[in-house]
């Protein structure tokens, strides 16, 4: 297995430890689980935005803890939702009196565990709201729309909501932004080589040297189609077509473009792929409003890429542009 690790069962613990040690001035561990919170406490009266879900997607979520983004992160075991206890520990460590916003992907385990945590918060008088991100259009008609997964759009949602919380929005207004975001983000991925879980000994699926899997998930789930590998331009155009179809922006619109590496694809290829995406968009009469290119929401060491498009109004754009200072995303 082409992996740097010790005991496979210690991977999450040691990964979290490494992040916190590398960013000791910004991150601190909380509670007895893998939870992480900002060192700088929130301004009293601001909503704590907390992201969580299975680990194996680093730098998400713990790399996005910091000013302008998450107040805390709750990683579970690899690809496995965190427990309500772990979530509550991060809530306790970050709550600043104005309630908690959970940002989670649309996975049963994540939804249920955060739901249970929310019920316990309610018992303690801490108001919560949960934004469930379901941006993955990769499976198309194969699945019911309410089964769409959250993939790279989770970072986009967290960034926008984190910025809104930082400026002082209350829980209700954050909930409204979350709902608006839901209709404005669409993503789709393509895998060239599946990732390998530390606990398994083999990749989650096999792909021939010249095959690709269209519409993969970030847990090594199979996608919609297995095709011969195509040129970057053709892959980009395919992903642009599917995500655009979902968002249906008016002709001439400019979109947020997020090209995300799945873990094993190097930065140079992402840049090249972004160029292909931009040309495809322009060829279809659309523009690029904002750009993010990088390895942000991974599927362990999967080789491949996802494209996220955002159809954003000016308020969402200004939240996207707001300053952010986290280990894995920093701007301006």
């Amino acid at each position: 297995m082409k992996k740097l690790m010790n005991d496979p069962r210690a991977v999450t613990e040691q990964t979290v430890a490494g992040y916190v040690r590398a960013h000791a001035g910004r991150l601190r561990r909380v509670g007895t689980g893998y939870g992480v919170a900002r060192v700088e406490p929130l301004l009293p009266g601001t909503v704590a935005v907390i992201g969580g879900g299975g680990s194996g997607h680093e730098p998400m979520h713990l790399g996005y803890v910091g000013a302008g983004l998450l107040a805390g992160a709750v990683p579970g075991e690899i690809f496995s939702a965190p427990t309500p206890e772990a979530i509550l520990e991060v809530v306790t460590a970050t709550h600043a009196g104005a309630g908690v916003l959970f940002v989670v992907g649309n996975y049963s385990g994540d939804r249920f565990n955060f739901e249970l945590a929310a019920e316990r918060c309610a018992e303690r008088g801490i108001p919560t709201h949960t934004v469930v991100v379901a941006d993955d259009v990769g499976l198309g008609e194969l699945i019911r729309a309410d089964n769409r997964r959250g993939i790279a759009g989770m970072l986009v949602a967290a960034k926008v909501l984190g910025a809104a919380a930082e400026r002082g929005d209350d829980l209700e207004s954050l909930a409204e932004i979350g709902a608006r975001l839901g209709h404005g983000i669409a993503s789709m991925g393509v895998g060239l080589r599946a990732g390998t879980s530390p606990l398994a000994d083999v990749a989650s699926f096999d792909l021939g040297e010249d095959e690709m899997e269209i519409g993969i998930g970030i847990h090594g789930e199979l996608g919609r189609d297995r095709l011969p590998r195509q040129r970057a331009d053709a892959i980009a155009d395919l992903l642009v077509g599917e995500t655009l179809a979902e968002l249906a922006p008016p002709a001439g619109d400019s979109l947020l473009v997020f090209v995300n590496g799945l873990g094993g694809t190097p930065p140079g290829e992402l840049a090249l792929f972004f160029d292909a995406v931009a040309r495809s968009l322009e060829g279809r009469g659309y523009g690029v409003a904002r750009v993010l290119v990088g390895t942000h929401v991974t599927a362990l060491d999967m080789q491949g890429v996802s494209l996220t498009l955002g159809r954003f109004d000016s308020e969402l754009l200004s939240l996207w542009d707001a300053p952010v200072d986290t280990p894995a995303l920093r701007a301006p």
Partner: protein
Amino acid sequence: MTLDANWAARWLIAAGDVFETERGALSELDRQIGDGDHGENLSRGFGAVRGQLRVGTLPGTPAEVLREAALTLISTVGGASGPLYGTALLRASEVIADKDALDAADVAALLRAGAAGIAQRGSAEPGDKTMLDSWLPAADAAAVAAERGEDAPAVLAAAVRAADAGAVATDDLIALRGRAAYLGERSRGHRDPGAASSALLIAAAADSL
């Protein structure tokens, strides 16, 4: 043969044993249409439950035993099945609260509440190819048997048969909930791991009489 706290404890210990034995098989089912950890999840969760139980020294009610186990499952499993089984047992414990021993109607009510908990937590409907497709037939069969006036062991036996049949019947369904749903049509022809484990759990209740 009383369905008291000790029976509840024996049930959950037996469940821990069977999930340990069937860990590989359950994970293998999950590998077909999910992420391959269902056996791990349950052996971890019910292992923790088992560790907390001391049969014979239990002062309380079956409801207390189930409630304790539910909280442990919720706090140790983490995946989808932890909250689902946790919610099921929590709801079940609520409908048998304060009873020292359960009769046939209680058993039927317990199963009905468990199924309802899963349906609610999972927004699942019958036929979605989930654990509900084992719990719901079990609850229905138990209700019928209890209506007919059968005793608790007979009610449980009926539930076991129905849970099993329900699990087997998931083979032909397309998954509409959970990770298996990402496969769409390709999920057909595989047994739902949660339905399979639910049948084992209900069987453990009968076997612990």
